[in-house]
């Protein structure tokens, strides 16, 4: 038996455990209760949501679907997310190779520089980008500046996720492919990319979810266009309407779905690397 289970424990152990468990529940409630109410209020009949609930309706969802400005904002958000993610995935994947496999002068410095934007405050990045676009490049704020802004914080995630996958990559597979007549380009295409594809996909999906609901950096870099988070923000200024609740609920469900998908992808990546790890010695 595990010694930790038979170890004599303090007489207060039971009490301590009960308190900790309660505390954990309180924290979880604090994290998720507001979201639960948001979802609930999106189905509320009354124009001014609050407790108690007066009745349930899909009215706000219908209103949402027929709101042209809102749909335009959603469409803009999707465009930005797809464009930023596509670029970030290509740039991030390409950057991950030299970062993991060496061939650069200061690998640790480079790694920190590539991932630092994750840690920097959004407001700081936003202001910096605004100054840069307007005062240095003298460019109009537009769709393109938003996409460029989103690249700043999505690329690091791709670098991190793809880099982790490359770290555990069995270089012998590349040797084997070269040995079997594959040129470096074909090794990349037939061996390396298929094996890191789940990580690339997982990174891309996370990038989409981050981009879709990014507010701060978008706010600083956007021109006259509306994205979904900006739209919600402008609506809230006139008071919370149940329609915004409905939009937020849809956003929540969409984000969860994409995250779930990326989690599945990462799981598949882990399974494949598990196979690589167990190869050889496991046989019997």
């Amino acid at each position, binding site marked *: 038996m595990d010694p930790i289970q038979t170890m004599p424990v303090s007489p207060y152990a039971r009490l301590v455990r009960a308190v900790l468990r309660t505390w954990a529940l309180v924290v979880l409630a604090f994290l998720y209760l507001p979201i639960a109410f948001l979802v609930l209020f999106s189905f509320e009949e009354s124009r001014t949501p609050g407790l108690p609930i007066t009745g349930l309706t899909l009215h706000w969802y219908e209103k949402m679907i027929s709101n042209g400005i809102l749909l335009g904002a959603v469409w803009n958000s999707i465009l930005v997310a797809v464009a930023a993610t596509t670029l970030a995935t290509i740039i991030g994947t390409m950057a991950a190779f030299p970062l993991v496999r060496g061939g650069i002068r200061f690998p640790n410095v480079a790694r920190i520089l590539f991932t630092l934007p994750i840690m920097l405050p959004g407001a700081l990045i936003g202001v910096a980008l605004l100054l840069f676009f307007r005062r240095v490049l003298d460019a109009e704020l537009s769709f393109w500046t938003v996409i460029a802004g989103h690249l700043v914080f999505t690329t690091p995630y791709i670098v991190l996720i793809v880099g982790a996958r490359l770290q555990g990559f*069995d270089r*012998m*597979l590349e*040797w*084997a*492919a*070269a*040995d*079997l*007549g*594959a*040129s470096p380009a*074909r090794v990349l295409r*037939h*061996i390396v990319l*298929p*094996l890191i594809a789940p990580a690339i996909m997982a990174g891309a999906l996370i990038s989409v979810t981050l981009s879709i609901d990014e507010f701060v950096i978008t706010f600083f870099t956007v021109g006259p266009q509306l994205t979904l988070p900006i739209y919600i923000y402008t609506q809230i200024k006139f008071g919370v309407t149940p329609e915004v609740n409905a939009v937020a609920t849809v956003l929540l469900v969409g984000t969860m779905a994409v995250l779930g998908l990326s989690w599945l992808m990462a799981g598949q990546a882990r399974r*494949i690397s598990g*196979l*690589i790890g*167990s*190869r*050889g*010695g*496991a*046989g*019997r």
Partner: protein
Amino acid sequence: MTGIGAGRLAIELIEATKRYGETIALDGVSLGIEPGEFFCLLGPSGCGKTTTLNLIGGFIPLTAGELRIEGRRVNDLPPHRRNVNTVFQNYALFPHMTVAQNVAFGLRMARLDGRETERRVAEYLDLVGLSALRARSPAQLSGGQQQRVALARALARRPAVLLLDEPLGALDLKLRKQMQVELSRIQRQVGTTFVFVTHDQEEALSMATRIAVMSDGRVVQSGTPREIYYRPVDRFVADFIGESNFLEGHLAADGGARRVRFRDGGAVIVPSELPVGLARAGAVTLMVRPECVSVGTTAPEGQWATLTGRVINVAFLGNHTRVTVQTAAGAVVTLRPHSEGSRSAALDGLLDQEVCVWWSPQESTVVASDTGGGADGSLA
């Protein structure tokens, strides 16, 4: 494809050297491997076997020297352009492909047409006996089966030379013996030159047509298993392969036949052919295999190398008995097989007796004592 090329070597290493900074992994190795050979690189860990294979495969560049494959200098040729294929120690099967796709990979890279690819995949899976498992993924295979896939994958390209780096290292003993037989059969069947790395002397002796014994980045001796076993060029080789008696003495010309004279008395006749460079008298080591040594109360007549001594140990080992005799030249171990009925019981009675041990001079080998294991003792 191979051409006539009579006398052309499949692999030729000329003064091949590989350095990793200060470490010398391979130190001026020269080797020639004939087409169709089953050539073993044998040596202790770290002696440079894998390095040699990786050089031939093209995975690491030579520091100095030259490498030829089928007569052509390939020093600067990348791996995917060399007419050799490798079976890696950990197999390196592609985890995202099925067994059949793994075998087909090299053929796809060679841009073989679909029908021919399919035909060859079937042919080589059949050769290794895995036709039934063609749709499985590598993760669903046992170690021995993965090994066979790796073999089929490498052979399917019909390379001039197949490189195998301790391919049986990860298998358990029984499977290993089975695969040794299997590998020999496959090699004879396809006729491809095999270069096989192992640190298991028994594996090398049983499979190879020729063996190169390596130590510290050098080839100490190369030859047929029999030559290596019965004519080791130095103490290192004799010690590494099998068991041997080492008797220290001095070489002395003694009338007609030359002898090794021992410090505490006694002398034995040595082989008529001695290694070059041993013509002058000096400190030498005489080596003789235990199974070549006979033991008895009286020595027979004739040209035998004979020593007298006292039996200090008799050990029954199942199919043979091991008798240790303390002589003037040191302890001499003999192995006697139990082929003649009651022989083993007779040996038991020898303990503490004064006996003679003798062997045919031609079955012993003499090397200079002061060579610490260098490569200077080639056989005359």
